[in-house]
């Protein structure tokens, strides 16, 4: 079970796990529930740079398409090929189904802690 309080969040429903200068990024369970069954993820290639607050990919469900926003600045060092092959993993466990790993450049800022994110989504902590 993922310790959700150890993660940071964006208002666009990404989660990010920071370990040193490595950021692991996915979408939250709230986002997965809102999307419905995820059928396709469009992720950047290893080596591409991402910019905090900018779109880095897309996630599609049977009913809708959403853009993915980078929580941090950095360079993509790993893409989760398992989720690319089987996007339903996002619905099965959104916090295990990470999408990309980024080597962070600069200091992450503007991220939400668990309480702030839960408050944003109108839920109970």
């Amino acid at each position: 079970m993922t310790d959700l309080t150890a993660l940071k969040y964006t208002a666009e429903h990404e989660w990010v796990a920071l370990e040193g200068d490595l950021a692991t990024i996915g979408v939250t369970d709230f986002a997965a529930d809102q999307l419905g069954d995820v059928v396709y993820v469009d992720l950047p290639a290893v080596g591409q740079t991402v910019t905090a607050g900018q779109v880095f990919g897309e996630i599609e469900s049977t009913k809708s398409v959403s853009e993915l926003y980078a929580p941090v600045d950095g360079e993509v060092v790993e893409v989760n090929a398992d989720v690319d092959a089987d996007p339903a993993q996002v619905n099965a466990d959104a916090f295990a189904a990470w999408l990309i790993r980024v080597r962070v450049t600069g200091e992450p800022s503007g991220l939400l802690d668990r309480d702030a994110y839960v408050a944003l989504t109108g839920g109970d902590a």
Partner: protein
Amino acid sequence: MDQPTDAGIPAEEPRDTPLRGEHEALGASFTDFGGWLMPVRYTSDLAEHHAVRQAAGLFDISHMGEILVEGGGAGAFLDHALAGAISAVPVGRAKYTMILAEDGGIVDDLIVYRLQDDEFLVIANAGNREVVARELTDRVAGFDATVEDQSDDYALIALQGPTAERILAETAGVVELSLPLPEIRNYAWGSVLFGGEPLLIARTGYTGEDGFELLVPVARAAELWRALLAAGEPHGLVPAGLAARDTLRLEAGMPLYGHELSRAIVPAQAGLGRVIPAGKTGFVGEAATEPRPDAPVLIGLTAEGRRAGRAGYGVFRGDDLVGEVTSGALSPTLGHPIAMAFVRPDAADAADLTIDVRGTRIPATVTALPFYRRNS
């Protein structure tokens, strides 16, 4: 769920169906559709979709409108007011038809059940119920017939899928009243007793599978819903939401008002010219039969990969924008993208079409509808 684009988005709070409490207890997510708060999914829209193809799904479609037309002139009136030859429908049968505007544009697509010689039940889409009731009321002047919107008195439950008949036969409290269930044919209706009350059950649906639609008085709706779910459990029945309903009907090539159908098009453009019998005259919307050689036509498109063209996306031939997708999804049954689109008639059989999927042109192949047809 997409909102019909030209049915009007109501400003007021969406309405609840009589089954709202059942959906909440089952953990449904809700969406506003046609002015109604409807279950969009219970668990997984893909699982619900597959259940309907392989076993059965139970849908609350109480948002649909039920309008009763009665009187010695009811058949003649509906021949005048609607596109089809309604007076020719035998008692016990149903017909897919449309109500057209004077200029031939589609006001709504409908199913009409002939209940008696002088009694017809008209089922309208949720977002169009008021306008259909109003148009019918306006058109009835001079006919020996009455029009009554009874939508608030009934819930409508759709039981769809290959195990539907078995489930209905095993549902506690359901007793065959008219024909035995296996003898109720496609696009026909019969009656059953449920808790001592007669219910209309029609062998119709919007999924491309066998199944029934059950018209039940509001007071008994929850009881019937629960009885069906209980009887269906050993037969793979699951409650299914609008998300699954939409992908099911799209695979089956069935139009959705506000997407494939609107006031701006005539039936023939949507490949549904057959709703007007050859030679029919003297009905509202007769202008629909005038040839429109330049009008866009509805086509089916398939693509490879997993990125679906969706409603509103452009269809291109080379650099020319030749049309627009009206509905599209990654087909859960077929595993590839499918779409319906209106395109210029000269592009309707082009071998070099693409769909602009958010900046990427995806090659698309023109395909005869439906995309999916059940083995029967």
